[in-house]
């Protein structure tokens, strides 16, 4: 057998195995979602599989979906942002505070989002310019800003009655709520950037091999800085979404997002080590989380059961991922 034909055989073998692995990975997650839908369908035959409930699930997933879409490229680039929960909290508290001064609601929203995004600038500066580990940096800012939100609000929950936020929550286009359109748009945008643009490719390059990216003329500072800002921007938008959904502003709002955003991204198959992942996987993972919480509510199970199920699902998903990549490497 000549050397050349051997090489061909080798690469053919490798290709086949990669395909199995990637199918197991991506479709495994989708399978999980479908099985969950079937399960809840039998638990709640008359309601679960209706248009209204689908919309409810999607509306419930809006805040998480927006934040997870922004977190995914950040984690692929080798960064992480666990401070998003505190940005949500600070944004909602700022909305409450500013509305109370009688400021126009559009200006309030704009200011709140600006303040939220500036936290991303701070995170990015500390990580990129000062070289502090991203997890430690955002853990620090998370603690700092959630504390600050409690101080500013004195721990009070403020109820918000404002036409803008009502419009935001209730208005629909062709029977589909604006919130759903926003989250679908954000996911689609992130997907497009990841797949089609130079920026998307550079994100993978930086996360996969930072030095190689740098020595190929890719800016390994500006891009990550931008990703931290986008992450905080997404959290600030999520904050505004939550204020309108709950009709109140509270410093406690963000706490539940402390880890669920990162959980969704990891569940979606993105590697914490960077260089590998996809927005599509994240979108399915967000769907799983939202379906889980909707189904549990309909079965009238305690919400604690949800976190238990989620924890198990996360570990199983990562196990499947690792097993399939081991198969690929063999």
């Amino acid at each position, binding site marked *: *057998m000549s*050397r*050349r034909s*051997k*090489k*061909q*055989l*080798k*690469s*053919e*073998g*490798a*290709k086949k195995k*990669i395909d199995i692995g990637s199918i197991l990975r991506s479709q495994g997650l989708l399978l999980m979602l479908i099985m969950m839908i079937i399960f809840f369908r039998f638990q709640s035959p008359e309601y679960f599989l209706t248009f209204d409930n689908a919309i409810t699930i999607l509306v419930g997933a809006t805040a998480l979906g927006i934040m997870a879409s922004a977190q995914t490229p950040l984690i692929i680039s080798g960064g992480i942002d666990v401070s998003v929960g505190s940005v949500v909290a600070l944004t909602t508290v700022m909305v409450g505070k500013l509305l109370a001064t009688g400021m126009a609601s559009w200006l309030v929203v704009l200011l709140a989002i600006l303040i939220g995004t500036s936290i991303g600038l701070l995170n990015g500066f500390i990580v990129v310019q000062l070289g502090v580990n991203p997890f430690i940096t955002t853990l620090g800012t998370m603690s700092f800003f959630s504390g600050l939100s409690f101080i500013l609000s004195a721990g009070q929950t403020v109820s918000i009655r404002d036409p803008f936020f009502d419009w935001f929550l209730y208005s629909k286009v062709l029977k589909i709520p604006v919130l759903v359109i926003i989250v679908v748009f954000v996911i689609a945008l992130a997907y497009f950037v990841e797949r*089609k*643009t*130079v*920026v998307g*490719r*550079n994100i*993978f*390059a930086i996360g*996969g*091999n930072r*030095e*190689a*990216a*740098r*020595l*190929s*003329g*890719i*800016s390994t500072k500006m891009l990550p800085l931008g990703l931290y800002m986008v992450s905080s921007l997404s959290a600030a938008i999520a904050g505004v979404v939550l204020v309108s959904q709950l009709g109140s502003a509270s410093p406690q709002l963000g706490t539940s997002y402390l880890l669920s955003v990162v959980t969704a991204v990891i569940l979606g198959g993105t590697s914490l080590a960077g*260089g*590998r992942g996809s927005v599509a996987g994240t979108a399915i993972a967000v769907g799983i989380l939202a379906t889980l919480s909707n189904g549990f509510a309909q079965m009238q199970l305690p919400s604690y059961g949800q976190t238990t199920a989620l924890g198990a699902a996360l570990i199983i998903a990562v196990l499947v991922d690792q097993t399939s990549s081991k198969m690929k490497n063999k």
Partner: protein
Amino acid sequence: MVAIDQQDRARKGPILQLKSISKRYGGVQALSDVSIQVHAGEILCLVGENGAGKSTLAAIAAGLVSSDSGQIFIDGEEVVLNSPRAAEIAGIRLTSQELQLCPELDVMTNVLLGHYPRKKIPFLVDYASMKRKAEERLASLGLEDIDLFQNVGEMPVVYRAFVQIARSLTPGAKVLITDEPTAPMSDIEATRLMKLLKTICDQGVGIIFVSHRLDEVLNIADRVVVLRDGKLVDEMNKNEGNKERIVSSMLGHSSVDSVRTSSTISANSEIAMKVENLTTSNGIFDTNLTLKFGEILGVYGIAGSGRDSLGMTLFGSNKPTSGKIIVGGDELKLGSIKSTMDMGIGYVPAERRAQGLLLERSIKENITLAFLRKLSKWGLIQAKSENVSGQLWADNLSIKTENIENTVLSLSGGNQQKVLLSRWLLTGCRILILDDPTRGVDIGSKLEIYELLQKLAHKERVAVLVISSDIEEVLKISDRIEVMRNGKITLSKTNPTQQEVARAAYLEEAS
């Protein structure tokens, strides 16, 4: 005395014998019917191109991989080595290419890793006897100069290799297998390692030494075994071995030397890059250099001579403390990779995996990485032009793959290096800086890369700067040679002899 040794060996028989070993990976016959043996106090060298089966054979002997068929004998008794543990009990020790040490721990701990002496009280480590044991181990190998308490991560690569070998030689070691330990080393470092292997061999350990460097092999081997495509194609004793024979066995055809195209540079060839009084904080002092279009300028230096810093600095990776770089009549903005690239300069770094490749991404993406902006409109990648460019350069450099969407990890070292070369050729750079372009590359690809560089310089009139730790490489391909030592140029000459280059690299002080 040698004669007695050999008689001794013949009487005792081999310490390790692998008989008719075959191994198949999927559709590839990695080894077919290979038999080798090594005696106590003998150094057996395994050579062959990448993918010839050397590492598989080493892995089978070390119990990491089990063979499909064949037998293994130790001291004449058949053994089954189905796990690394079984091989260790049998007396076989393997040190592989990637250093398996804990960089944050000190030498003493690394040497005894997993075999700490205990105190009588459970769970407590006996540090006093640990220090003694580590000292003894290092002293027995003639490595008294290693500081027991230094962290391994802070040591030069050759010392790390020493520590790793010291660690693997636990009591009961009969055979030491080292898989390309010298790949990341300079010549002088490799020489030190060779000396160590001799010492170990003299203590009655059998050594199987895998290497790409034929000089080393000829220098140290008692016997040489050549593998090609999973078969044993040649075996020779020390006195029968010569480079010509080994290379022709490895390649399956003779002719070592590539066709040396002659350069047509003359004194008035256009200057591509002029470096004036360059000084950096990472080991370059007051260096002057001129690079012309249409030539290959070789820069040789041993590790620590400043040769690595030179490439990085010229490419704008770090900012010099003083000096000028003039390209095309203009002064280059220092310390900026982007402006350096804009001036048409490309750079292939020394560490292919750590500094060059995105291992999990496709061949295509690795080729287009530095040129992606030009293959896009408004930040959108033009998929078609990317595919065309990727395929074109994969074909131009005959990168052996059937699909450029395969990951770059699926390629051999030589082909991976060609991917890095095509990354810069695609950009159309007029000045190409390469740092150790054939490190860890098999001989076949090495010759291809040499031919390519000569074509680039002599036909396309690109200015090529090759920085290298391989003295033969520099002598072979360069039109002009500069030698660095201690951060300064110690020799600058058109056709120096090997002795001149070596003298300048090892001995001379710059005036």
